[in-house]
């Protein structure tokens, strides 16, 4: 009985690690799909407009975004070499990374929210190696890969 108990504890630990690793893998797959989609979109756009967009209107990856209410007063100190910044806000703010912006732009085809259309699923599968397709299908359906191991 004691050995069964120990195995049960070991099983739960592994299950927890598998869940964490599966969501880490899904995040990496989302990033890969989103980035490939963004590059594809820009390539098509530049081909159709026969010229790259004006340099002042594009923001190259990687970047992060800090957003706050327009009425927020921002006190900003900058070192002369622009290597150090200090911002003081008088209101709350949010910080997002580039991948979050790509998701909001729809570059990850709704996979992150399990709202991927059949057409988008075809596109998403074409953007990843075959070994990852089952994870893409699982995300599109909003189902957990873990169920194939635990039957729950």
């Amino acid at each position, binding site marked *: 009985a004691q050995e069964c108990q120990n195995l049960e504890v070991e099983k739960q630990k592994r299950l927890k690690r598998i869940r964490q690793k599966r969501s880490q893998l899904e995040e990496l797959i989302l990033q890969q799909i989103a980035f490939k989609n963004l590059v594809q979109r820009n390539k098509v756009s530049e081909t159709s407009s026969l010229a790259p967009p004006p340099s002042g209107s594009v923001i190259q990856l990687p970047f*992060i975004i800090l957003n706050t209410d327009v009425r927020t007063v921002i006190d900003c100190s900058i070192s002369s070499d622009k290597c150090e910044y200090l911002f003081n806000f008088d209101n*709350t703010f949010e910080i*997002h990374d580039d*991948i*979050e912006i790509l998701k909001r732009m729809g570059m990850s085809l709704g996979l992150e929210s399990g709202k991927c259309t059949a057409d988008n699923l075809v596109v998403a599968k074409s953007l990843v190696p075959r070994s990852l397709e089952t994870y893409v299908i699982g995300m599109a359906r909003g189902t957990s890969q873990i169920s194939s191991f635990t039957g729950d």
Partner: protein
Amino acid sequence: RTRILVSIGESFGTSDKFQKINAMVNSSDRSLKRSLDMSSAPKPLKRL
């Protein structure tokens, strides 16, 4: 003062680091106080 330190400047990576920051910044009751006195006329905006 507790603070959150993250490394930025690399492509992608784990995005949950900013979720922790946003949760910390937006959880404080200070924002509640601030929104309470938001009724006051908005202060002159400083631009970067």
